[in-house]
């Protein structure tokens, strides 16, 4: 198990990049009043069909079948953390529409790992693929900020809007 939630985010984000995403949006919402911490990782990569998704969640399968040692623990680790800390875990995915992972947990739960070094996570993701738009939305008790690795540089708003539409369509489908 990872001792920081930001490592879970990096792990799942790396899979998004492997799935050919051009936009990867990470959302972290903290709410002390309702005692929630919600992490959402959404990409516009190639997605998975329902059969693959079920397999992955059921037996920690890896899609990287050609590998000598397929591991397939990324989602399982986050699910374990989330469920252990009194939260819920959800993945929705469809071929061609990308994948969204949502994990919630009780912010004050004694077993909840700290968020840790989100900067290093974002940096590693940027280094892994500098052309992908890595977005980070943080919302902590009413304070918000937004970060995008492509901001001002290769900014293509149309692509972002498309990703947003995809996001809502996938949300409804799920």
């Amino acid at each position, binding site marked *: 198990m*990872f001792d920081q939630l930001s*490592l879970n985010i*990096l*792990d799942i984000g*790396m*899979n998004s990049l*492997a799935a050919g995403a051009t936009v990867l949006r990470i959302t972290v919402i903290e709410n002390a009043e309702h005692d929630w911490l919600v992490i959402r990782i959404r990409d516009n990569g190639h997605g998975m069909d329902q059969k693959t998704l079920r397999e992955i969640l059921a037996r920690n399968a890896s899609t*990287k079948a050609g*590998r*000598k*040692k397929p*591991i397939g*623990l*990324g989602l399982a*680790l986050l699910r374990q953390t989330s469920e252990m800390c009194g939260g819920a875990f959800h993945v929705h995915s469809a071929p061609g529409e990308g994948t969204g992972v949502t994990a919630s947990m009780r912010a004050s739960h004694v077993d909840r790992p700290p968020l840790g*070094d*989100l*900067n*290093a*996570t*974002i*940096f*590693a993701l*940027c*280094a*892994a*693929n*500098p052309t992908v738009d890595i977005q*980070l939305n*943080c919302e902590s008790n009413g304070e918000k*900020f937004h*970060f995008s*690795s492509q*901001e001002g*540089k290769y900014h293509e708003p149309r692509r972002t809007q498309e990703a947003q539409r995809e996001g809502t369509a996938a949300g409804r489908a799920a």
Partner: protein
Amino acid sequence: MNLDELKKLKEKAQRQVALREGNKKYRVVFSMGTSGIAAGAREIMTTMLDEIDKRGIENVEVAVTGEIGLVDAEPVIRIEERSGEKVTYAKVNADAARKIVSEHLQKGKVVDGLAVGKVKQKEAERLK
């Protein structure tokens, strides 16, 4: 963490990953799959990039890859030379990371005690 920090981070990230472009002598590949991350690959990468920055080494580009199958040897770093020679370092800790930067990337000497495999130029060409 605040927005200013992230902006600085972004500038640094752009400066450092801009190193990917162009024909550098060395390419450092970090294995960043589940097992690599669990073994501390992210911290090793941060350490190495800071060290590269501190020493002002410019002939290096960085890349990150997914799971590479050397699960029990993580964190794993592969250094690829433009000539085709590849050296893999396994079980890299922070001290080893700094040593790899100062010896291998700066002086061009393979750190023998840490390297696990070396694909010679001829073999690399054969594999291409």
